[in-house]
């Protein structure tokens, strides 16, 4: 009797396992069958644009594309920002075609490295490279190239600008916005009001809104490693940047700044909107926040001030690009969709609705022409700033670059090392890592 039960259990278990395997395989076959039966290729497009603002925009673009197509149908899958790229990587590593999406929104600065790692499909034979190169922002285009191969198509960018409160500047006797670091220092000193240990208002502080790294780019228009592979961290310009930042911190007091910063919030509580800070660095989309929550503000916007007259109003941008994960089922159709998304019409729609900078320069220009009043003013300034905007692609030879440099910069801004010591240490570490990789 007992033995009977035992044998019965074994049979049951084997049947269950067999069933599971059968179901997994069958399920996959079924999925691909339905795709074929429509005679349309279904593309799985992964993005992290799931917010109330962005989701309708991206889905409108997809449905416009679908309507124009007889052969391709794009399905949008929203994956949260924190998961999307690890999930994609797991799918690519599994080499299971049914798990791999066809198009994914990737971090533009990681594309070179991921191209080298063969995580994404090379596109030179799939898209019209020359046409794209002709219209794309050169920095963005460069970021998706690795060893003469294209690994993604740039989509959006977000350069940093300086917003300034006209009223607060005028009260201090300034009618023109700042042009150089010296202007920022001088104007800030005049505007800043400190009562005891607390600030009533602050003119400007370099590390509100952006990090030290942006000012190092602004100082000389160079990344830590140039495109020719030269390490340019410990330069006089970069030293000057750190000294300039520390000058603010020393004068204003680190504790007092921290305390002031702790009160910062979103929307109405944003320090620029509540007129607590007169000059503030942010991306162009900050305009929409001012429009929605700070209607009373009389403000202007300029490209980031330069280190000294003539050194250049350099700025930094991140961005996203569209890529085909390695091993995707329908690369050809995916490329068609990507070309549509990078095309003038789609890019204009995205730019207009999100007030984002787009990688397609023709689209950006055309949008600026269409806009009016304040919108136009801000967008035009953003377009100007884009001419001097750098991206920071992860260098393939030193992928760990930021982990090596950031702690040193933090030591400098916390006053634990002099700018010279910190930059020297950072440069040495990066050079050692670079030599080790060769």
């Amino acid at each position, binding site marked *: 009797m*007992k*033995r009977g*039960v*035992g044998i019965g*259990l*074994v049979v049951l*278990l084997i049947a269950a*396992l067999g069933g599971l395997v059968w179901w997994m395989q069958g399920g996959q076959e079924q999925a691909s069958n339905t795709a074929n039966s429509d005679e349309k290729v279904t593309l799985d497009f992964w993005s992290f644009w799931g917010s109330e603002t962005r989701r309708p925009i991206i889905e409108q673009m997809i449905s416009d594309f679908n309507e124009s197509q007889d052969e391709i149908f794009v399905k949008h899958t929203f994956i949260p920002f924190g998961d999307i*790229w*690890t999930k994609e*990587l797991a799918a*690519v*590593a599994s080499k299971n075609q049914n798990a791999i999406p066809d198009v994914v929104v990737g971090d533009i600065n990681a594309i070179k*490295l*991921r191209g*080298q*790692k*063969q*995580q994404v499909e090379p596109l030179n034979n799939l898209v019209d490279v020359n046409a794209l190169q002709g219209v794309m922002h050169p920095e963005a285009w460069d970021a998706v190239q690795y060893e003469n191969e294209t690994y993604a198509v740039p989509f959006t960018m977000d350069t940093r600008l300086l917003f300034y409160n006209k009223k607060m500047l005028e009260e201090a006797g300034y009618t023109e916005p700042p042009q150089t670091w010296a202007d920022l220092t001088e104007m800030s000193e005049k505007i800043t009001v400190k009562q005891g240990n607390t600030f009533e208002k602050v003119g400007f502080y370099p590390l509100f809104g952006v990090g030290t790294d942006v000012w190092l780019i602004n100082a000389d228009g160079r990344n830590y490693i140039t495109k020719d592979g030269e390490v340019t961290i410990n330069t006089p310009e970069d030293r000057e940047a750190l000294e300039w930042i520390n000058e603010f911190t020393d004068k204003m007091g*680190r*504790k007092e700044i*921290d*305390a*002031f910063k*702790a*009160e910062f919030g979103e929307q109405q509580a944003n320090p620029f909107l509540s007129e607590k800070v007169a000059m503030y660095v942010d991306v162009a989309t900050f305009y929409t926040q001012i429009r929605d929550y700070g209607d009373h503000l009389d403000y202007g916007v300029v490209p980031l001030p330069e280190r000294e007259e003539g050194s250049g109003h350099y700025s930094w941008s991140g961005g996203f690009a569209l890529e085909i994960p*390695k091993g995707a089922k329908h690369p050809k159709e995916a490329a068609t969709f990507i070309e549509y998304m990078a095309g003038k019409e789609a890019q204009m729609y995205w730019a207009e609705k999100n007030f984002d900078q787009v990688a397609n320069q023709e689209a950006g220009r055309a949008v600026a022409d269409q806009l009016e009043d304040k919108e136009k003013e801000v967008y035009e300034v953003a377009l100007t700033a884009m001419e001097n905007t750098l991206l920071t692609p*992860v260098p393939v030879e030193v*992928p*760990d670059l*930021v*982990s090596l440099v*950031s*702690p040193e910069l*933090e*030591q400098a801004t*916390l006053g*634990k090392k002099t700018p010279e010591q910190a930059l020297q240490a950072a440069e040495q*570490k990066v050079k050692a890592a670079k030599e*080790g990789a060769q």
Partner: protein
Amino acid sequence: MKNPLRRADTWQGYLFIMPWLIGFAVLTAGPMLFSLAASFTDYDMTSRMNFIGIVNYTTMFTKDDLFWVSLYNTFFFVIWSVPLTTVGAMILALLLNKGIPGQRVFRTIFYLPAVLSGVGVYLLWMQMLSPSSGLVNTMLGFIGIDGPAWLADPNWTKPALILMKMWSVGGSMLFYLASLQSVPKTLYEVGALEGANWWHRFRYITFPLITPVVFFDLITSTIGAFQIFSEAYVMSEGGNGGPVNSLLFYNLRIWNQAFEVYNMGYAMSMTWFLFVIVLLLTLFNFKFAKKWVYYEGDRR
């Protein structure tokens, strides 16, 4: 002579644990063996997997400064947080075992943080630890202490995390409470007759009888402390372990190596080194346990 009935029982026993066995073999042991093998390669998940001998291990020990930084940070955290949370949980349990009025309410309140977990709690603590307006520094201000800039000052970030860990001792407190209840009252009565004060009662009656739970708590919280990751990932700016690498814990370094720069083989060798450390510590604990852990009914 084997008993056929017994053999059938054994067979069925295995059968019943089969789902777990399969799960362990396929989902735990398999990947572990794979990662051991891959730790001797330059595996990056997508483009390569070449055998490179012990290069990952030699790089780790001789060339990677951040490996040592992360190891130091992790040991610092373990050495402080394990004793503090163990003693904290024990004291709390002793206090809540006194039969004071409303102790059920207190037990619930102290246990509550153990139920809450994850990113929400970390964000809450980031607000509480805010240098000027945070609750922690406001409270310190009441007693005249000018609190530090917890998460912004590299000297105070790790203490801040240890403080945060103290908040959730309620989980182990529950174990202590349960074991305190099982200490026979008669022993205390005898103690009282012999004139034992509270310290004698704790040292010679309570503590020896709850040592199995202390031991369990010590082992699990040590292993748990070595696994610290998400706190630093969420609470350091950009998830990089800053400021000045003060929150760069071992597992955060592993994560960054594996998923930011795709040095998966290297990340795996780091993982195995951590495994060896934890294994040795646990073995040592078990060996040492014979000296102080007392099981009722055991012969010495």
